[in-house]
């Protein structure tokens, strides 16, 4: 797993307070109790801090899964290929 993929998993794990093994591309906003509206804002803030980006509101709206989050971060120049 690349460094940025590990960071992504760690951020989701921390922001949502879930085990890292539960973080997969298919995990979706509001699909688990831990990923609710409040946790989502914590998640956005931590993603922005960790990857040093400021996400556009339209991208925050689109960000409804782990997989989608990765896609959006790639748009901001964050690479997720294997190092």
């Amino acid at each position: 797993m690349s460094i940025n993929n590990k960071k992504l998993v760690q951020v989701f794990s921390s922001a949502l307070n879930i085990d890292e093994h539960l973080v997969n591309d298919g995990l979706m906003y509001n699909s688990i109790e831990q990923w609710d509206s409040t946790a989502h804002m914590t998640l956005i803030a931590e993603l922005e801090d960790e990857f040093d980006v400021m996400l556009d509101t339209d991208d925050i709206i689109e960000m409804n899964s782990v997989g989608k989050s990765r896609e959006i971060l790639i748009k901001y120049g964050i690479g997720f290929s294997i190092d």
Partner: protein
Amino acid sequence: MQKSYTAYKMTLRPVEIADLDKLRKWRNSDEIRSFMLDQSVISEQQQLDWFSSLDRKVDEIHFSVDYKGNCVGYANVKQLRDTNKLNTGLYIGDTQYRGTFLAQCLGLALLDYCFNVLNVDRVFAQVLEENNAALRYNRLFGYEVSHIDAGIVYMQLSSSNYEREKKKIIRFIR
């Protein structure tokens, strides 16, 4: 004549006849209807009758909600009978945006409309007791529970609570 209101990427605009089919299908879908206080299925004729009556309603405002120029949901503000209390309601019908931050944008737009355009200092909401998602969502904006009766949670939001909680959300509106 009802005007549109645009804020936080959302446009709250008058319901148009072209919206009716889409709104009725969303309203009647199990995912939305099952969490409404009135869970009856709305027929096309019932909806047409409702739409025809909108101009005469002085104590209700009904909006279609647009995002990026497309109708994605519905919102309303209703004055509770024999009171000066305003009730708010909304749903996001477009499944692409259900369960996304768009819900926060819509909530902010509707509440700003109530507090800043209608100039009330308190709004109310009623949520089914089992609708935990809606209860958490309302709390995000500062709603507090007043009481619970017959499976319905009665909530209220003061303008001061809203202004305090709103700051935590609008930092993500850019």
